[in-house]
């Protein structure tokens, strides 16, 4: 078999124009198998504009999805399109894409400025254009002051921002960020989240993956939940949570007198169960989490209870996945 070096398409990208009728990202019944393992199974999505969170536990298929979008893998079946073009066959759409990979891909021996300039030139920018653009994006991610220092001297958060800067240097329409917050300290997380939200507000299509629901919810309300290679839910995150109201939610209270607190809470109609988990801990079950959370503070204050902590132990991705998949 002849190697597919010319990508069966127009390697000459000068003439490429995106399909105006097509979504920025489109997957139509896409499956990807690694041997006997189904990494993605019949996934269909169309995304254009705004920030979309791709959520899933490890092994859900997030990275496979991004590799398919970035043309690093070929779909076993189905169609993958960026701007209406198959990225496996034609690398031209990447002129409008910025990709922030999950793993470290930085050149520690280079300065952030040199690194961004080098990869800017691979978009076809001239040397002068690349320098101007590199300065602009490094300023955008708040690294302008230190951009002439070697990347090897940067903290984890700064390195993540260099990765984001190098992906933005071509002013892309589509930005794909694979686990951009992994390993960052709280300050770096906040900075990166603000950058992502800003990109979404500016009308870019941003795909950001994570396995932590709270992180994504701080960035966007639009989420796609993947589980074992399938899309199990998509849409507004609050709406997804609403759908879960048919399932009991749990609220864990830490207090000095759980029995007294339980007596007060029993007055709330929406509470369906109370459990004394251990000394000083009370577990409340309800199907209407919002209503209970609304009434709980007043009841605590009115009855003078000393509550040291309120937690929603099942308000995480794993719990949502458990609900959505029926425990499978």
């Amino acid at each position, binding site marked *: 078999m002849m*190697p597919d070096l010319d990508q069966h398409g127009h390697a000459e990208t000068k003439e490429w124009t995106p399909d105006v009728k097509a979504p920025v990202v489109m997957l139509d019944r896409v499956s990807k198998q690694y041997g006997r393992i189904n990494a993605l199974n019949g996934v269909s999505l169309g*995304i254009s504009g705004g920030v979309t969170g791709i959520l899933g536990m490890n092994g859900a298929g997030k990275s496979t999805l991004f590799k398919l979008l970035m043309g690093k893998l070929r779909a076993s079946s189905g169609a993958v399109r960026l701007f209406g073009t198959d990225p496996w066959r034609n690398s031209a759409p990447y002129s409008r894409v910025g990709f922030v990979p999950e793993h470290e891909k930085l050149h520690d021996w280079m300065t952030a400025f040199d690194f961004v300039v080098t990869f800017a030139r691979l978009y076809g920018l001239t040397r002068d254009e690349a320098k101007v653009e590199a300065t602009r994006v490094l300023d955008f991610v708040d690294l302008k002051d230190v951009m002439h220092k070697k990347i090897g001297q940067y903290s984890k958060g700064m390195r993540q921002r260099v990765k984001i800067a190098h992906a933005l240097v071509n002013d892309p329409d589509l930005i794909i960020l694979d686990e951009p917050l992994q390993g960052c300290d709280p300050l770096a997380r906040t900075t990166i989240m603000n950058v992502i939200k800003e990109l979404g507000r500016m009308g870019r299509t941003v795909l950001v993956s994570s396995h932590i629901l709270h992180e994504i919810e701080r960035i966007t309300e639009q989420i796609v939940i993947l589980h074992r290679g399938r899309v199990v839910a998509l*849409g507004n995150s609050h709406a997804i949570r609403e759908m879960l109201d048919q399932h009991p939610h749990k609220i864990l209270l830490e207090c000095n007198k759980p029995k007294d607190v339980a007596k007060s809470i029993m007055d709330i109609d929406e509470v369906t169960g109370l459990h004394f988990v251990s000394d000083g801990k009370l577990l409340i079950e309800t199907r209407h989490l919002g209503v209970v959370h609304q009434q709980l503070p007043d009841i605590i204050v009115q009855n003078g209870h000393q509550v040291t902590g309120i937690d929603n132990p099942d308000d995480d991705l794993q719990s949502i996945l458990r609900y959505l998949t029926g425990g499978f």
Partner: protein
Amino acid sequence: MSESPETPFEPVESKENDTFSTETPVTGKSKMTAAWSSDEGESEGVAAVASLPQGQVFEQNYQPWNGTLNPRWMRNWAILRHHVLGIFRKGHRPWGIPTRLFIFFVILASCTDIALALLASLVGSTELYDMFGVNRNNLYGHVLGFWPRNILYFPVVAALLVGGMISEDRAHGTSALYFSRPISRFDYASMKFLSIAIILFLIIDGTLALYYFSEVLVMGRGWSWIIDTFPMFLGAFLCGILLSFTYTSIGLALSSISRGRFFPAIGLIAILMGTKTMAAIINGLFDKSTLYVISPYDSVAHVCQAIMGIDSSYGELSWTWSLASVIIINGIALYLLATRVSTLEVTRE
């Protein structure tokens, strides 16, 4: 979502001035009305549990990009200069200090015949000049002499260069970054190939040209001498290209199947030296020179002996067999390289 099939795409705002910077005002509106809009809570929240296996494809409006992409050669030139200039300058691909020093040493060592030819002209020794001056055998020897050039110099330089060329990109994830740009697989493979071949070519054919033209200048050769010897120089020049090409193709093929620099480097030297040694042993034991066709160096050398018109050192073996061998060896190496790049195995970390 569109309201009717006739008007699936609503007019959208212009993208002019829609670049981001710290001064950019936040517009708050997406130019693309998304499958799920980018509005923050203004729209009614909707969600769906994906009950159908194929999910849902949304319609939306967006402003297509109508910018211009600079020519393909500009992107390819960026890859090429990143690799080649790294030999001389910082801020490009970092070649190790040992690699740079060894290249410097090989360039100096390759110029020894120039120095000795000049010495011969200075002292007026015809014996010394016959040994080192420009002639058919010495031009061939400058490129394809086995000791020391093709045992110590060129294969080792090639091994140092190809060692990490693709394999380290793969290990560091750099190749994945290349392919996140509008770089085709052919462009990637060909620019990597050209980078190595050009460095080898500059060392081998650069010093050859220096050797030839220094004689023209220093010895005051006239047009008649140049007309006599220039075809020989061109023949040797072609041999240098053939040698650079062959070492590069084998080395890069090895680099494309590895994750480190050690295996491709040692593998290249092992193939070049191992096949030659085996062919030499068979020739010594059984007086059969046929096995030289498995040796890339000997095949190129045999073809180049025919090109240069000097006596063959490969006995009864016809040079056309060696030519076929050179084509087959390069073909296999390039096929392996092309396959690894076309399947994007070179991006798997």
